[in-house]
């Protein structure tokens, strides 16, 4: 009946299980071994090993030149990455929390995203900006946002949200190869999750959605931490006789929406889930794409969106949990949607 793709050992051809953050580190290490132009810069990524421990021992392996600790100057370091990329380096910037990309927005939005275009294609900015996003750690409103839609709204940026350890590695390797600025948003709650990851430097192409599970009654679409929540919800729903698909777009830009249209056309129902506030969010784009295409004729019920509240993320654990979609919320929304039609 249901099948899960690209997350089992068999699909990936490996039994080796590592954590999401180990997978990110492995990608960076392999890219740096293969290419002298690749280097990393960010706050406390050296001896400290990164605020979330992602850079770990890379400093000891590659040294202070290439695992470059910086002052607390987000605008300066992203700008330095843009400049280095312009003259042929392949910098990877780590921003400690994605909330602090706000400090660097000029360099991300006005410089990195636009230089290739503004110069009529004469130069390009092959850089990667990695940053943890999302809630669930009790860090409150300035350390818990999901700002992916902002970046996806800027032409010239690619936006990646890996949901599994294998994707954390494979998508990052593709991001490093890419000749454009790529924003990679890693959900904090995923860093300690684990899964099978190929030891070799296997790329996962940007712009290829993953069908995580195939079902009959309903298509759930979500990214980042919402993928595992949707898969968990799917198990609960299966016990109730509701069989769902789970699709993970993986990259917001470029967006591969064909598998979504195809699956929604088959199930007739779409539940679009995101942690970010619903107002003008990424799932609004997905909803519009369904509405603007023949997929709309196949719907048995209106598209349903399940999003974070249109509010900042609060501190208290029960408030924080209540602010963003949890497994039970997905189950409930799915049931309502199936019942409605």
């Amino acid at each position, binding site marked *: 009946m249901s099948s899960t793709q690209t997350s089992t050992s068999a699909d990936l051809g490996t039994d080796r299980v590592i954590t999401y953050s180990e997978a990110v580190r492995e990608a960076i290490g392999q890219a740096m071994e293969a290419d002298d132009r690749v*280097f990393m810069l960010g706050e406390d990524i050296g001896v400290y090993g990164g605020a979330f421990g992602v850079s770990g021992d890379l400093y000891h392996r590659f040294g202070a*030149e*290439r695992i470059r600790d*910086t*002052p607390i*100057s987000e*605008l*300066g*370091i*992203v*700008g*330095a*990455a*843009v*400049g*280095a*990329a*312009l*003259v*042929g*380096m392949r*910098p990877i910037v780590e921003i400690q929390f994605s909330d602090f990309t706000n400090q660097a927005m*000029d*360099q991300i939005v*006005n*410089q990195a995203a636009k*230089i*290739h*275009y*503004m*110069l*009529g*294609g*004469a*130069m*390009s900015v*092959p850089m990667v900006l990695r940053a943890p996003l999302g809630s669930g750690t009790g860090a409150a409103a300035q350390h818990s946002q999901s700002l992916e839609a902002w970046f996806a709204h800027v*032409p*010239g940026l*690619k936006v990646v949200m890996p949901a599994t350890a294998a994707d954390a590695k494979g998508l990052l390797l593709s991001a490093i*190869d*890419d*000749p*454009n600025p790529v924003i990679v948003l890693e959900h904090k709650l995923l860093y300690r999750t684990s899964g099978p990851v190929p030891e070799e430097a296997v790329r996962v192409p940007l712009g290829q959605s993953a069908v995580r599970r195939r079902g009959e009654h309903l298509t759930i679409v979500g990214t980042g931490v919402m993928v595992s929540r949707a898969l968990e919800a799917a198990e609960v729903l299966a016990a109730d006789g509701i069989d769902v698909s789970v699709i993970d777009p993986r990259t917001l830009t470029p967006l591969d929406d064909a598998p979504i249209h195809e699956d929604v056309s088959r199930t007739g129902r779409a539940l679009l889930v995101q942690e970010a506030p619903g107002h003008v969010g990424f799932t609004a784009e997905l909803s519009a794409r369904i509405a603007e295409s023949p997929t709309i004729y196949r719907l048995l019920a209106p598209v349903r969106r399940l999003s974070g509240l249109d509010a900042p993320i609060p501190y208290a654990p029960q408030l924080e949990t209540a602010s963003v979609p949890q497994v039970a919320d997905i189950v409930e929304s799915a049931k309502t949607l199936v019942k409605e039609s």
Partner: protein
Amino acid sequence: MSATPGTDHDTARHALLTMWTIRRFEEAVDDLFARGLMHGTMHLSIGQEASATGACLALRTDDAITSTHRGHGHCIAKGADLTRMMAELLAKETGYCRGRGGSMHIADTATGNLGANGIVAGGIPIAAGAALAFKMRAEDRVVACFFGDGAANEGAFHEAVNLAAIWKLPVVFICENNKYGMSFSTEKSFAIENISERAAAYGIPGTTVDGNDLDEVYGAVSAAVDRARAGEGPTLVENVTYRWKGHSKSDKNLYRTKEEIAEWRAKDPILRFEARVKESGLLTEEEVQLIRTQAMEDMRAAVREANAAPDADPSDLLDAVFARA
């Protein structure tokens, strides 16, 4: 790179031609705009020619620059092609940016110009990053980073100068203090006498020179470039100068007096250099006239050729949003 412009014949000739070319180019732009033949907005650098020219004279071709919204002079002084510049401003397909960038975004890979910038101080962290790359790759290359007095009050300036200082990057920060950021005077926007004093806060040398004196600019930037090449890190050079024209096309000059403008016109950096080299006998009156004529002819040829080029083509506007692998 070259001998001092005020003492070497060929260098003096080159410097004078560069300054006149910038002047004529800016005047042509001003004129085309006034006649409705050019669209958009322009920030002219008339009056500031010695700053761009003296600084770029201290650089090699493979050294890089980052520039600003007032960047035509930097671009020309670094060696850009006048016709491609003019074509860009005239919205032609043959322009440096194929009409996608315009005046504020011209870059030229061939001459190491990493680009003008529409964002005040936007190029300063980028300059530090390019210098970081040169240093990491152990290349003997330097970045000259141009920016205005206004930019020195942006956070980007402070973050980037500090990064360059702690990493001893081969970059020269060149602040073109033309007394105003749009309408806001440096008297109002700074509580210090000289912007170069800020260098001390980052532990690097800072120096203020007469930005309308080509030899002074060249001397200060050369020393800073030597220091950068020797691995000793960045320097902040402040060129005090003045823009004769308004900030951009919308400026009615309400914030400054006619007398002040006249006073600075009297300090014309080009005429000053001309007088100096004629007096010392480095260039003859005849040579000077030939240089003036050549600048005028080069500019006219650029306008003519650019005008004849095909208009920028809207059929593939999505083409360069992303670079292809």
